[in-house]
């Protein structure tokens, strides 16, 4: 009994500070926001509190909100898939093909861009992608007379900028789970006659699922809520649900609608996670 009491105190003492902190600075404010999303008006100015569902109704009655939400999901999917296609092989080469000091150095190089400012990086892309910019000039100097490359203010620019921002997450998570795969498993498969491709497909990939899934979540979720990257890079194409939410807070003080849209987005994210969970659960446990 005394041991049990001590254990309880230890748990409370250890988790207490972190969860108290999270409660005060995340969950309480979010509860307040949830409450507002059912109010007619935001927290400022003089008015009565009045319960309403109209902000949630708006999402279901206004096509453009649904279209833009869909657009955001598409953006999240595209960025996640591209990060996966680029990040997984890179992580594989790093984890399984490069040894010792070089690996450590390259690993540092890959995570280092995290420490530069996201806004400035996004802005740099506009200098790279615009006609007459770095990319265009480089292509022109190698192939004089080639058609001018103009990727600025386009959907592609948004995708490129976001992939650039989030790719290190995918490389990181994949690297960690690839590194955990025992080399003897790969040798076992080779001794059984599997080619490199078969090993990749049937051994490495399934065992790296936790890393891939973690990377996908860490990328997909913030990307669908992103707003300044599309705004700065997309021109007229850079309109997504994130920019609409942002404008509810910054252009008009329509916090209830902004909050409602955010919670709808959160619900969609949770739904996607819930749907993919049974598939992932099995994979997560074995590895």
């Amino acid at each position: 009994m005394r041991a049990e009491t001590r254990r309880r105190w230890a748990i409370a003492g250890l988790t207490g500070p972190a969860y108290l902190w999270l409660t005060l600075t995340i969950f309480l404010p979010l509860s307040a926001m949830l409450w507002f999303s059912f109010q007619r008006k935001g927290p400022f100015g003089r008015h009565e509190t009045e319960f309403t569902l109209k902000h949630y109704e708006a999402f279901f009655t206004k096509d453009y909100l649904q279209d833009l939400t869909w657009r955001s999901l598409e953006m999240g999917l595209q960025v996640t898939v591209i990060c996966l296609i680029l990040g997984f092989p890179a992580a594989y080469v790093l984890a399984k093909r490069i040894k010792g000091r070089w690996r450590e150095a390259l690993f540092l190089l890959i995570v280092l861009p995290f420490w530069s400012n996201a806004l400035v990086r996004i802005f740099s892309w506009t200098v790279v992608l615009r006609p007459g910019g770095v990319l265009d000039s480089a292509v022109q100097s190698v192939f004089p007379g080639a058609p001018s490359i103009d990727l600025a203010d386009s959907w592609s620019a948004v995708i490129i900028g976001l992939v650039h921002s989030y790719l290190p997450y995918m490389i990181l998570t994949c690297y960690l789970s690839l590194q955990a795969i025992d080399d003897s498993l790969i040798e076992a498969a080779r001794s059984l006659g599997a080619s490199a491709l078969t090993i990749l497909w049937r051994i490495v990939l399934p065992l790296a699922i936790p890393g891939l899934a973690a990377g996908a979540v860490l990328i997909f979720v913030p990307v669908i809520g992103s707003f300044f990257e599309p705004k700065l890079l997309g021109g007229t194409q850079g309109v997504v649900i994130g920019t609409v939410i942002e404008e509810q807070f910054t252009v008009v003080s329509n916090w209830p609608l902004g909050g409602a849209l955010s919670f709808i987005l959160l619900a969609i994210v949770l739904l996607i996670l819930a749907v993919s969970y049974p598939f992932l659960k099995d994979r997560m446990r074995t590895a």
Partner: protein
Amino acid sequence: MQTMSHRLLPRFADGMGRAFLALILVFLYLPIAVLALMGFNESVHYALPFEFSTKWYEALAGNDRLLTASFNSVWIAVANTVIATVIGTMAAFALGRFRFRGRTVMQLLLFPPITIPWLIIGTAMLVLFFWTGVGRGLHSMLLGHVALSLPYVIIVVGARMASFGPELEEAAASLGATPVQAFWRVSLPVLMPGIVAASLFAFAVSFDQFVISYFLAPPGTSVLPVEIFSAIRKGFTPEVNAISTIVIFVSMGIMLAFARLSKFGGER
């Protein structure tokens, strides 16, 4: 001849792999290189062709606003890293070592701060802090940054926790160590790579945190990302590139120092 081709193939694949990795690095560093170079470009409008100039660095030396903001950023990031790493590691240790009711819920609760757009959390914090009298300022920014860093710390340290069982602590206990001694002398050193990785995450989350700072920055004081955002909206000059370049090189130094002190990223 056939044996020759067998011998060459894996090397060829290796070469391809390395070339691919090199391309990824080029992609990751292209905008950063452009950013650094433009800090040395004469034109205020980022016009090409390139003309070398150090005038933006000279201008920076006189730009108190940007320098103060940088100082604030570093200060908050360091404080955030210390607090978030310490209390996050404590929580991760408890979640990893004990099985108790509510544990799953606690783990699930780590996801909202990551999944909900920071914009929403930022405005929500602003309202609550305003109502409760916490107000805006470096202290409330710190409150916000720690909250956003905590989930990352708990998840990263938790992953490290999962890589070893309680046997090590049991072994320490059998040798006469108290739980506290076992933690300091055994668990903590084993957890170290995870803790270092987590603290770097915490530093990055805070140092690059724009949205929360934007809402919680008090009048007259500001942090680097907020300054940069204002600059982008109103008169973006290569001075911003200059300060970003300095920041990148300083953080590269910090990272390398960390890497030397720990096995972060190396063999497990």
